[in-house]
């Protein structure tokens, strides 16, 4: 059963997103909403990673070796400035999108494995990830015209 690999992928994606949210928040401290919401959402990611941990450990016991090129590398550090903010939010968006699709995949697998507990975790968390995407999209829509057309 390969479910453990996708659980590991999702778990690491949540951990990476939490880390990236904190870096972006710190780098854009002068955008107070970004700073505060990045930290708030990083805590949400921490919580999701923690919820996934026992399932990842349990399924790892019956998993074959991890396949090649399983994990993605979507973040190379935070930037500064107006366009830097836009670009950083875009990184976060792509990382949240990876989490989002992983929840779908893991949820499907949970049905297959008839694992009600895992399904409950997926159902509890996937909405929160979707909201992160929505927030990032809203914030980028607001920032884009000023950063791309107006700013010198």
């Amino acid at each position: 059963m390969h479910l453990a690999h996708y659980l590991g992928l999702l778990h690491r994606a949540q951990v990476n997103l939490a880390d990236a949210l904190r870096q972006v928040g710190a780098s854009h401290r002068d955008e107070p909403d970004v700073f505060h919401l990045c930290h708030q959402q990083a805590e949400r990611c921490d919580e999701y990673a923690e919820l996934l941990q026992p399932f990842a450990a349990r399924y790892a016991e019956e998993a074959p070796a991890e396949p090649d090129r399983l994990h993605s590398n979507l973040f190379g550090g935070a930037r500064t400035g107006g366009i830097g903010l836009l670009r950083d939010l875009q990184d976060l968006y792509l990382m949240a999108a990876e989490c989002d699709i992983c929840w779908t995949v893991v949820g499907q697998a949970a049905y297959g494995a008839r694992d009600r507990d895992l399904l409950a975790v997926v159902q509890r968390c996937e909405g929160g990830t979707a909201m992160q995407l929505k927030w990032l999209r809203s914030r980028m829509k607001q920032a884009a015209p000023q950063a791309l057309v107006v700013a010198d």
Partner: protein
Amino acid sequence: MVDRIADPWGPRTPYGSGQEWPVRVDTFLDGDLNAEDVDRWVQSASILHSNGDALDIAVRDGRIVGVRGRAVDRVNRGRVDPKDLYGWQANNSPDRLTRPLVREGGRLVETDWDTAMGRIVARSKELLEGPGGWGHFGFYTSGQLFLEEYYTLGVIGKAGLGTPHMDGNTRLCTATAAAALKATFGADGQPGSYADVDHCDAIAIWGHNVAETQTVLWMRMLDRRRGPNPPALLAVDPRSTAVTREADLHLPIRNGTNMALLNGLLREVIQHGWYDEAYVDAHTLGFDELCRTVDGYPPELVADICDIPAADVRRAAELLGGSQRLLSTVLQGFYQSNQATAASCQVNNLHLIRGMIGRPGAGIYQMNGQPTAQNTRETGADGDLPGLRNWDNPEHIAELARLWNVEPEVIPHWAPPTHAMQIFRYAEQGSVKLLWISATNPAVSLPDLSRIRRILRQPELFVVVQDLFLTETAELADVVLPAATWGEKTGTFTNVDRTVHLSEKAVDPPGEARADLDIFLDYARRMDFRDLDGRPLVKWTTPEEAFEAWQECSRGRPCDYTGLTYDRLRGGSGIQWPCNDANPDGTERLYADAVFPTDPAVCETYGQDLDTGAEFLADEYRAKQPGGRAFLHAVEYRPSPEVPDEEHPMLLTTGRTVYQFHTRTKTGRAPQLNSAAPDVWVELNPADAGRLGIAEGDLVGIASPRGAVQARARLSGIRPGVVFLPFHYGWFDQDPADRTPRAANELTITAWDPVSKQPLFKVAAVAVTRLADGGGVPAPAPTVGGSAPAVAGVPATVGGPAAEANSRAGGE
């Protein structure tokens, strides 16, 4: 005669449930003048708070010499707030601006209008050249201009320049009211009527020091409390105020925990079955999720988070749940605090699940702080579109484009209009290059003042300030435009309960000062804004024509003004919108039919996630099939972004006194008001004061990570661990050589609610230290209201003979 400084609320006129509130006419005239000495009485309404009290301005020899309440008006039945009784004297102040000023070699020098406007127009035209020119313009206006002025400004900004960067200081005071109303009901608009005080059997006051911010509304509540069948009274406030001392139950919760309290109260109401199942089923969405969320907040947990006894949570729920006609009012204790919109929505939830809306006595006031804030919101001079339209609805944009005869693409609608804090951020980054500030004083009123001053001083930022006086903000401007004020110009404005009043010109403005409307019209003319047919974009030249243009804009929208005229507003009472063919005499209460403006074609917003502010899209909204039902929003409690730590162990909250308004631009120039509250103070609980070795009157330093201020200590009934600073005190009347920092906003955090974008003024962590002995002299704090002393021996605040006013029950 009544000293309305010593007794801001005046004599009681008790009345019972369902009776009409008795008339009491308050009058104050200059010096020894009597009514016979007055040449003319000119109709107006209050401009120093949001209550909308109707009054007449007394004129003698071309000068304002006093005011008298209008007995005929539904809002105040003749009563006048002390700020209005005395505040008009600021109009006659010798330091009014009478000529435009421009910056020359680092100094502001007098000039003529042509030169001043010429500079603004030259800079504007330069900035408009090239792609994205619109984005260099920011407008920061007020809650104190008139409807006609806001609408004109809105059209100039949104259809002339095409900038989304327009907001008002309403962002600091009522943005959450608007956001909570939109989130729950689909559109802005106060459900209740002030007449609900006459009918209610319980009043719940949520973070609202109504006794000091809307004294006439408080008089009405007190008169009910002194009459037969008085309403029960619940107050939520970390301070001891005249309201909490009158209340049957006071919950002095820890700042920033409103959300936990409301979730706990809703849980009790639901678990005891004190909700209206039929109403919930027929008229709301989201009840099951609300039940799931609030289920996690049992009284013991709420008691722990809010630091109040669990038994009081249960008692409060019983008071709310047992009421048959419940009236709620909400203000800054919620709006400027943690989870502002989410917590305010829970008050709406309480009323919806109990079916306590749209009938006499069952009402909600999501209050405004300022006299004309409702108009800033309606007309699109702030972060909204005119006529409560939805920026994300292409049909609404098309309506505006047809009305103004411009291309829809000109009207900024690709994202929500930019909120004030973001406008200042763009100015800080240099992409907003012209900032036009009208009738507000951000150098004292915005959070983290050292940053705001730095932004306003940036040489690349062209700052225009339009005001009555050389305010702290005007001192930093490149061009200062002298404006006329209340009593010197004509226009309309709308109060909290949707009552529209006409305020007529009584006297000429001083010197070359001009009405704000005329200034905006002059700018539009000089900029030569045109519509698609090459005609002037702004087609009106008088206030009444501007009002008529606005009426067309409001047609068919929730705030429909089409049934009103200046003539109808003359002589009698103010009239509540919507006023149209279907409701020719106006509308006392919204939602009497339980049909809410949530239809996708009507609603002002497609909704937001209350935790993050994420915007929902049109399709997502339609999928909810609201069909005229209201939304019950469920949200978990989250701690504030800033909580006390070792270095900053106390919580700061800021607010007002009854005697001052905002940054004292007017009230600081009215002798009776100013001497009642002449200087800043800090309120401390005696237990904290004892621990820190602070006595009444000692000089105290209050420091946050942003800055520090000094104030003398008032030992008061505020909850332990919390200190209070009034935010009124800037430095315009301090000797420049001897300016000690005293503005509360030196300390406040730059953070805002994710939905309403209202700054968090109620939750800064601070350190408090004793700086010097007060020598036994008490703090310069009033003994009335929230700053009442906890220790004996402080002389009472009085106004003396100069403050004696007439107050006559029954009328003249």
